[in-house]
């Protein structure tokens, strides 16, 4: 095991050197176009990422049935970074230099994206990142098909503040202790303060990864919520910690009519392990829900369940992001007439692809996309009922308007050719 991977590493470094010296001339090898899939199939993140690998395989298989791209068949190259952040960088290097893939679809956690970023910049390749994230980033080599905070967090808070959402006046921002919740909560806090919410009406709470004993925190939330003002919880709790959190809410009898919880990381997949009878009415903000009835979505669900050979297989938001991202990449490659990385990167902004809930998403100059925004309430069957939807599609902001450090920044890879153009000073960086 050890020997093998070391040899592989050596080989990849040599190959990397070769590829570099040849100036990427080997970008297309043989009669297939290779597509890299960089999702954890083991370790803690396997719970979320395995399905994304499967959905990519399904999309590639389907594209090949249609005749592939540019007359060539697509070939999926799957690697397993095993929820290990440094291994993500290593595997990304292997995909680009050894396998010579034309584009990579992958990563889930922000830390894994940050870990592969230098590799993609150094070797000049393309990464499609399908998960909602904290924003504050716009890189030339990365295309963000998940939601930026203004496409998920801000609309969710707006909904709760509205009459429809219950006129919430007091906020608990609860999250897992890492970069995504911390940045999102910073943005949300700034936003709430700008909306006239008093400082003492905001409670911020962080818990470690995989936190399983929620008794104290839930009783703190209940206490905070009985101060006479309508209270809601905005949850950026991630991964395994969600199930015990919701179980404790149910135990304490916290009903959605009293203190609603709106989550940004809980989808159909995460709810599969929970008894949702007691969670009815709690909310989630996403850009896609399986329960949305459109012909495109119904066809997709059918195809997915047939592919998985499981009539109960659920679909979720990051899967849809991969569908959109993959279709955009195919269109861009066909439009550019080549898989050459620089040409595809330049072609991608402006490319449109239909999303599954009706509407057409567009790749923007800041490498984010336009998305519908929906709020769903948990149903007894573990699905979501869409109770609110933003008018039209919302364009993703790479940089938050509500943080001091980033409110003047924009990402523009078409005209300004940079990811952090300062509109005040007129300079990059």
């Amino acid at each position, binding site marked *: 095991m050890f020997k093998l991977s070391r040899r592989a590493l050596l080989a990849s470094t040599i190959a990397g050197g070769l590829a570099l010296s040849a100036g990427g001339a080997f970008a297309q090898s043989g009669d297939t176009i290779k597509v890299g899939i960089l999702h954890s199939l*083991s370790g803690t993140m396997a*719970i979320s990422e395995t399905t994304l690998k499967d959905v990519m395989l399904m999309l590639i298989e389907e594209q090949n049935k249609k005749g592939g791209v540019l007359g060539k068949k697509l070939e999926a190259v799957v690697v397993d970074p095993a929820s290990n952040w440094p291994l993500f960088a290593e595997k990304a290097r292997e995909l680009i230099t050894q396998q010579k893939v034309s584009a990579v679809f992958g990563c889930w956690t922000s830390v894994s994206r940050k870990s592969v970023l230098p590799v993609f910049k150094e070797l000049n390749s393309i990464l499609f990142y399908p998960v909602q994230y904290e924003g504050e980033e716009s890189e030339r080599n990365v295309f963000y098909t998940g939601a930026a905070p203004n496409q998920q967090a801000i609309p969710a808070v707006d909904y709760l503040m509205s009459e429809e959402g*219950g006129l919430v006046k007091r906020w608990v921002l609860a999250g897992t202790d890492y970069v995504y919740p911390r940045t999102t909560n910073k943005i949300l806090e700034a936003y709430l303060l700008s909306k006239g919410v008093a400082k003492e009406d905001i409670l911020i709470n962080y818990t470690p990864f*995989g936190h399983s004993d929620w008794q104290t925190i839930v009783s703190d939330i209940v206490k905070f919520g*009985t101060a006479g003002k309508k209270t809601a919880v905005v949850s950026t709790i991630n991964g395994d910690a969600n*199930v015990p959190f919701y179980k404790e809410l149910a*135990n304490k009898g916290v009903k959605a*009519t009293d203190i609603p919880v709106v989550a940004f990381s809980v989808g159909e997949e995460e709810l*599969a392990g929970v008894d949702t009878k007691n969670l009815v*009415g709690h909310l989630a903000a996403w850009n896609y829900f399986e329960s949305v009835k459109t012909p495109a979505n119904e066809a997709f669900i059918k195809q997915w369940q047939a592919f998985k050979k499981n009539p109960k297989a659920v679909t979720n938001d990051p899967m849809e992001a991969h569908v959109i991202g993959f279709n955009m990449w195919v269109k861009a490659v066909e439009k550019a007439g080549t898989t050459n990385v620089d040409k595809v990167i330049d072609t991608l902004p402006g490319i449109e692809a239909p999303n599954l809930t009706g509407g057409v998403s567009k790749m923007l100059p800041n490498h984010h996309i336009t998305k519908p925004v929906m709020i769903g309430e948990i149903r007894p069957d573990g699905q979501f009922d869409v109770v609110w939807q933003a008018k039209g599609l919302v364009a993703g902001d790479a940089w938050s308007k509500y943080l001091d450090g980033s409110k003047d920044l924009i990402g523009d890879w078409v005209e300004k050719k940079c990811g952090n153009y300062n509109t005040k000073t007129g300079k990059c960086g």
Partner: protein
Amino acid sequence: MLRSVPIFRLLALAAIVLNCGLAIAGPYEDALKRFSADSFGETEIAIKDMAASGAQGALPALEALQAGRLSVAGDTVFYLDGNGQATDAATGSRLAGIPADGKVVRLNNRLRRALENALGGLTLFSKDPARRLQAAEALFKSKDTNALPGLEKAISAEPVPAVKKALVEAEAAIMLARPANTAEALGAIRTLRERGDQEALAQLNVAATSLADPAVRSAAEAAVAAIAQRQKLLSVVQNVWYGLSLGSVLLLAAIGLSITFGVMGIINMAHGEMVMLGAYATFLTQEMFRAYAPGWFDWSLAAAIPVAFLLAAAVGVVIERGIIRFLYGRPLETLLATFGVSLILQQSIRTLFGPTNREVTAPAFMSGNFDLFGLSIAYGRMWIIVFTLAVFAFLLFLLKATPLGLRMRAVTQNRRMAASMGIRTAFVDSATFALGSGIAGVAGVALSQIDNVSPNLGQSYIIDSFMVVVFGGVGNLWGTLVSAFALGIGNKFLEPVAGAVLAKIAILVCLILFIQKRPSGLFALKGRAVEQ
């Protein structure tokens, strides 16, 4: 609300006119028609109109709506009863079959609140005292002034003291929200002060800041201070309870390890995976019950205990016979080998059951919570504490009072002497390891109730388990018990002050310092018995 009133009046008028004739379309029937619009706004009006109509059918229909059993098929609004029979909501008569194109009426939180309020008014005079109690609680929250006359009637007619108390409290809450005079407000404050819980505190807080009358204000402030004092005291007790609960989980996870690591001295990194196997055994048992004996479902957890024990023990025997017995006395190799085993077990479960969580349902007796002197205690947590102590007692009995336990202790204390006394040490080793693994499996049954049933379940407990055993003193069951509860309670007192992340770090730092001072833990084994 604003829109519903004139519409309601119109409809009522129409109803009176029509009532003279056929008595088909009343305000209630008209309200029902709104459901076919499938819009939240229309549904809200419908709920209010139905509640105001006073029609016979309104209560069962609204209850069905709350339970998600009210459906619309074309113009027919119907609901399913407990036997799966469809009833027409308009006429109250049975439908021949369930309409095929029926769509369940959708709700959102706002409508659920409106429903609770509407039902609160309607069920005040229900025959079931539990329902009346619910109604009182709903009114306490909604503070609906319109319900006051009905509430007064209900109070004078109420035979059950507990329900009467709740009704009086609801009345006080409504009165305090819009007091008519000082005496009334003071009375309401007194009632709420006696109630003395978080919600009463919230209402008094509002009164103390919003009401103009200085006498009322000072009374409210005094009541707030009194309740806050009480709540402070209560929160200490609450922390102890939470600590005991966390401690019981730690103990449960560590107790198997205190056998394999504590008694046998094996550093078993696959211990957490034994817990995970136990949780999956619980899942499988529940699936079996669901498929073959749904009537006995509440017993599924009890049935899962032996299944989990046997499964984990069997895997334990295989690991011991296959790997560990070759590595006795080589702790470093044992650590690496068992770590490998843990990865293999995780990945095989992931391949077999998929990476996503599996759902283990809580049986009825473990769901919900009850109130003990203002302390809210979850049934699930309580049963886990009871269960943990039972497992502990069983293990203590096994080790101290049975021939097998005697042999186990003999072998671990002096292997060669035990062997020369005729004890089959290899067999005892296997049995001890199997026992430790089996107990870990049993822990999995309980942990499946509070945590994810996923391939990663074990990993989150392995560090904590070692921590508990090392802190308690290796080889000492009582030490494990004391250390688990000490760590649990310590953690729960630190958490509100320092936050969950810092509390965990602080506990670890304290533990390291403690181990520096007393390397053998809280209760060290003394004498020659310990082979170093």
